[in-house]
């Protein structure tokens, strides 16, 4: 019987208490010693052929009969008041079906409570008008023919301008500071931490505004069939999109179907319905034809979010033997005109080390740009860079090995929660990584040319424990094939494959007899969005639970066939495709022989994710070891080698897990060395709204990457023993690179990205001192 329980779930650095309906079929957890046939193997993806032949259908590829194209006209100023729009000439152009703007569209509630087509345009790229036409050409011609009158307003393009006394108002009538006092975490006291310290290191940092740069730009296609709205949306959350669309359009939830079969990258930027989703749906209803609206690359940079740049100060205090007495971290960010309170930059500071006195503050201000969004380990990437760089500086000041300093302050239980971890494999990750990398590094032979070599490391902590709610449905057919329906989506991490592995394992079927359906809200029961690294740890136990229920039904049938009717279902096991009576293993039946008995009938079962354990913290941990080469003449930094060691509990698929680590490392390399959104302070316009000026790593920038997993099942966390991996591998990368640069050339990079001009300036300054 379902009951309601409270459980704690960590999401992107914040702990939530949720009331959840618990209906989990009790499933015995897989232990470290459980013999596995499918789980733990480096298996190729189940949808690999579709991916390599071009048959995988993304939202961009949706094409329906009669489909029209929609696109926004966007503000070309950072801040303005709109006074008039003349769209008559545009509307008369061939192939134009509809033009909507603030003077001809009755106000519709915007998503997130903001009015669509409002009077105030608070950032470059703000929506001015929506054009629907026959094709991209017709729409493009019309966009160019719309005349817009605006009255420019003063703007604040960055933190300095927004925070200045008497600075311009980012939004008319609103305070520029969103959280003037800041989000504060504190334990102990800063004064005590300073008093007890023999050594204090105090550094300031800046981190860049970083763009997600999804290869598939954001987009949606909408189609109405009677009162049923179907939306294809490139999203990390089909159910989040369903609820936000139903809310914005005042539709019953069961009249909204959201499909996201293949998603060309998200990294935190693709959540619920967006303005183009809403307008595509409204226009499709108005015109009686499907409408597709996708962003182009420039719009992707202007309006699809970013990791906010930060200014930070970190103060660390320690005794002579390296025991931390103080961690203090202050950060300021701008989250855009309509952004939120800022990411949890202080997350690592409060939890990575044992320290009695910790204080973190994050203050967020507005600026005349679009809103910041979650971006792969929001807050933790920028927070870890500053914290772990300062810790490295402390190690040098104490003349201690940086890894020894970390072990000296190792936290066996969660410092912020005062509760034990379900499992913490960070020490093991340190040991594995150090052994593979060769740490502590040996001194290099004196360099002959301009290149200097250096070695650095950094640690990471993240959530990734997942939790309820998440459901699964299993349909088992008479031929012994199973369909597993889960309301999650595969954003490229391999979710479809790993959930199929889990189902095949539990059901005792071969992997090719299991088909996992994700990314469609109509057939699937609820599943969480793919964020916070929660997908696997949330959904896989639900899949196990549903499979276990299907097996119970099958076992009841098998018991009859084996003339053991009424026997306890737990008296049977599934071994290599057979249902076996434990007391007498001779009594066994191939599972498919049982299903064949069903006739044209289907076993249907459902399962749910159970609650998280009470009074325990579930976290992932890892350490990166990095080798760099720095050219002292040109300032160029080459990241040459990365050893990444991670504790994520049980690894369901080492092949796809390794790919996730590659991705996190590469994104960290970009963040540390080349990536930065640039806004011209004079015009307030973005200078980097493309993939040439905003430079993400390409293949020549790719270091040698070695991936290691502790791979110990976290049996206390959930019935599968796995935790998430999407975010952890980006977190320590930039700090480890910065620390390696210091080791190479003796200058501390405190402003990212570590571009050649910055390196040369630091080296020149070092020389004169």
């Amino acid at each position, binding site marked *: 019987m379902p009951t309601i329980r409270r459980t704690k779930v960590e999401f992107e650095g914040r702990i939530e208490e949720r009331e959840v309906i618990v209906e989990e079929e009790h499933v015995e957890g897989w232990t470290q010693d459980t013999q596995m046939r499918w789980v733990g193997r480096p298996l190729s993806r189940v949808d690999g052929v579709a991916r*390599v032949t071009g048959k995988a259908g993304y939202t961009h*590829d949706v094409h329906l009969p009669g489909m029209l194209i929609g696109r926004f006209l966007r503000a070309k100023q950072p801040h303005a008041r709109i006074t008039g729009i003349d769209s008559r000439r545009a509307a008369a152009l061939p192939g134009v079906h509809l033009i909507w703007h603030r003077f001809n569209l009755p106000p519709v509630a915007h998503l997130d409570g903001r009015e669509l087509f409002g009077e105030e345009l608070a950032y470059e790229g703000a929506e001015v008008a929506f054009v629907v036409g026959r094709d*991209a050409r017709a729409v493009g011609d019309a966009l160019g023919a719309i005349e817009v009158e605006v009255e420019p307003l003063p703007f604040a393009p960055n933190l300095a301008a927004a925070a200045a006394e008497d600075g311009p108002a980012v939004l008319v009538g609103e305070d520029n500071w969103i959280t003037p006092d800041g989000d504060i975490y504190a334990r102990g006291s800063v004064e005590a931490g300073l008093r007890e310290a023999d050594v204090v290191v105090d550094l300031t940092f800046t981190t860049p505004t970083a763009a997600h740069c999804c*290869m598939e*730009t954001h987009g949606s296609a909408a189609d109405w069939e009677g009162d049923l709205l179907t939306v294809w949306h490139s999203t990390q959350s089909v159910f989040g999109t369903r609820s936000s669309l139903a809310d914005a359009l005042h539709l019953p939830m069961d009249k909204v179907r959201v499909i996201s079969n*293949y998603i*060309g990258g998200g990294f935190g930027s693709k959540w619920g319905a967006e303005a183009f989703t809403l307008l595509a749906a409204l226009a499709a209803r108005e015109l009686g034809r499907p409408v597709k609206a996708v962003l182009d690359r420039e719009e992707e940079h202007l309006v699809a979010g970013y990791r906010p740049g930060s200014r930070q100060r970190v103060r660390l205090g320690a005794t002579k033997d390296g025991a931390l007495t103080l961690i203090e971290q202050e950060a300021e960010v701008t989250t855009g005109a309509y952004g939120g309170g800022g990411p949890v930059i202080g997350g690592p500071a409060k939890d990575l080390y044992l320290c009695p006195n910790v204080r973190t503050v994050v203050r967020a201000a507005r600026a005349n740009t679009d809103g910041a969004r979650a971006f792969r380990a929001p807050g933790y990437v920028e927070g870890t860079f500053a914290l772990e760089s300062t810790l490295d500086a402390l190690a040098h000041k104490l003349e201690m090995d940086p890894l020894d300093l970390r072990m000296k302050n190792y936290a066996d239980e969660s410092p912020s929660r005062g509760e034990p971890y379900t499992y913490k494999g960070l020490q093991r990750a340190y040991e594995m990584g150090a052994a593979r990398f060769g740490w502590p590094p040996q001194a290099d032979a004196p360099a002959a040319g301009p290149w200097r070599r250096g070695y650095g490391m950094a640690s990471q902590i993240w959530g990734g424990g997942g939790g309820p709610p998440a459901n699964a449905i299993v349909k088992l057919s008479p031929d012994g094939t199973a369909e597993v329906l889960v309301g999650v989506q595969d954003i490229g991490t391999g979710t479809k494959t790993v959930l199929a592995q889990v189902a095949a394992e539990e059901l005792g079927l071969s992997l090719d007899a299991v088909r996992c359906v994700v990314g469609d809200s109509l057939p699937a029961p609820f599943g969480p969005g793919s964020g916070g690294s929660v997908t696997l740890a949330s959904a896989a136990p639900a899949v196990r639970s549903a499979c276990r229920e299907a097996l119970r039904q099958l076992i009841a049938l098998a018991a009859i066939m084996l003339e053991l009717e009424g026997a306890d279902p737990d008296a049977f096991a599934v071994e290599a495709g057979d249902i076996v009576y434990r007391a007498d293993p001779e009594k066994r039946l191939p599972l498919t022989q049982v299903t064949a008995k069903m006739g044209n009938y289907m076993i249907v079962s459902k399962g749910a994710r159970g609650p998280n354990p009470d009074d325990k913290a579930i976290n992932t941990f890892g350490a990166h070891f990095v080798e760099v080469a720095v050219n002292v003449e040109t300032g160029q930094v080459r990241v040459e080698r990365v050893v990444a060691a991670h504790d994520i509990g049980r690894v369901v698929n080492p092949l796809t897990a390794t*790919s996730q680590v590659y991705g996190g490392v590469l*994104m960290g390399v970009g963040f540390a060395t080349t990536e930065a959104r640039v806004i011209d302070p004079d015009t307030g316009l973005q200078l980097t709204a493309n993939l040439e000026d905003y430079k993400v790593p390409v293949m020549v920038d790719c270091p040698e990457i070695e991936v290691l997993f502790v791979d110990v099942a976290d049996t206390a966390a959930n019935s599968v023993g796995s935790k998430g991996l999407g975010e952890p591998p980006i977190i320590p990368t930039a700090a480890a690179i910065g620390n390696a640069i210091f080791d190479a050339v003796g200058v501390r990079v405190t402003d990212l990205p570590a571009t050649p001009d910055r390196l040369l300036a630091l080296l020149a300054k070092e020389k004169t001192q």
Partner: protein
Amino acid sequence: MALNFRGPDAVPLTLQINGEAHQVLVEPRRTLLSVLREELGLTGTKRGCGQGQCGACTVILDGETAYACLTLAIECEGREIVTIEGIAQGDALHPVQAAFIQHDGYQCGFCTPGQVVSAVALLAHTPQPSEAEIRAGMAGNICRCGAYPAIIRSVRAAAETMAEQEG
């Protein structure tokens, strides 16, 4: 070269794609990418940027890789165009495709068609590329998911398979 002005209205074109002739009626301003995707339903070729910066739209034109987003369809008359849909022979995958699956040379998969096409063209020119040649030859294809190490491994494995098949 004789100048042959046509347009600006739609003009008939014959395009030779994956060994098959296709007749289309399109404006001269249309890119090869938009004609492949919108007129012919060949949506395997992706539009990542539309500006020749990402490589997701890579096709093979007369044996050389080209960005379909920077190529006008009208320039392609009389030329052999190979897209991702023409890489496999029926159900038989090209060794590059098989290697991408085996080595997980992708994550979200959106850039993958372009990566595969670039790798096929690279190996046609340089059957046994060094790692440096792979990196340089594939540098025009961005993978934001960062699958590069697995892509390098895939290209090497495909080169070996193709050498064995040749030998």
